């Protein structure tokens, strides 16, 4: 899995790509935590457009980020979710907490 970050003003965006499973989630969670603590963003976006696979480890990652952003009185979105990760997010009911948008076009 690959993780890259873009920061613009008070907004922090994480771009995830590759396969997000238990093997990959620990490093990703640690890096995202560090980036959030470094910039204390008001708005945070997790962009999943590059993910080719995700299991429930991805739900834990979104939930962890959500809890931190709530503590910071900020907001979190999950954007550009491809179809397989979308089915996992759907099954988890996480959309009740975090706004989720599907990847447009393709598939």
């Amino acid at each position, binding site marked *: 899995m690959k993780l890259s970050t873009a920061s613009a003003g008070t907004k922090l965006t994480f771009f995830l790509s590759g*396969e997000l*499973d*238990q*093997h990959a*989630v*620990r490093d990703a*969670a640690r890096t995202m935590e560090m980036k959030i603590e470094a910039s204390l963003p008001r708005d945070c976006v997790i962009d999943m457009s590059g993910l080719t*696979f995700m*299991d*429930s*480890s991805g*739900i*834990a*990652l979104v*939930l*962890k980020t959500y809890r931190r952003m709530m503590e910071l009185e900020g907001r979190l979105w999950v954007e550009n979710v491809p*179809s*397989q990760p979308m*089915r*996992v997010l759907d*099954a*988890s*009911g996480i959309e009740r907490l975090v706004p989720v948008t599907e990847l447009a076009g393709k*598939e």
Partner: protein
Amino acid sequence: MKYENRMRLKFPSRSVNESFARSAVAAFIAQADPTLEELGDVKTAVSEAVTNCIVHAYPDGIGEISVTCRLFEDGTAEIRVSDTGRGIEDVERAMTPAFTTGGDDRSGMGFTIMESFTDLLKVRSKVGRGTTVIMRRRLGRRKP
């Protein structure tokens, strides 16, 4: 029901093998002509079951994981994921959405996902002996 084909994998509970296990099962069931969605669902369910062996069954070391897959004449795939690890004390409770004994890198949604991505899910477990998860999914029901 008669099965047409079968395979068996055995590997140590290292987390790099999560991706190996789900990809190997996906490659095997491809012969049943699954849709992309079915393939994704089976991969996800296998990833959850194998990850549970790695994280929960053998928390302090490396143990053996076995994955078997059988394909039946009607296009049903049956996948069994077994460990000889710690076992589950209360299976019903473990299967409750959001229940986890893991840390905050776990969501407690593994069994919920296995359940919603398969047609049948059975969990057999004995404390100190291990756990077997049996999943069935009908494949290749695409419209002509």
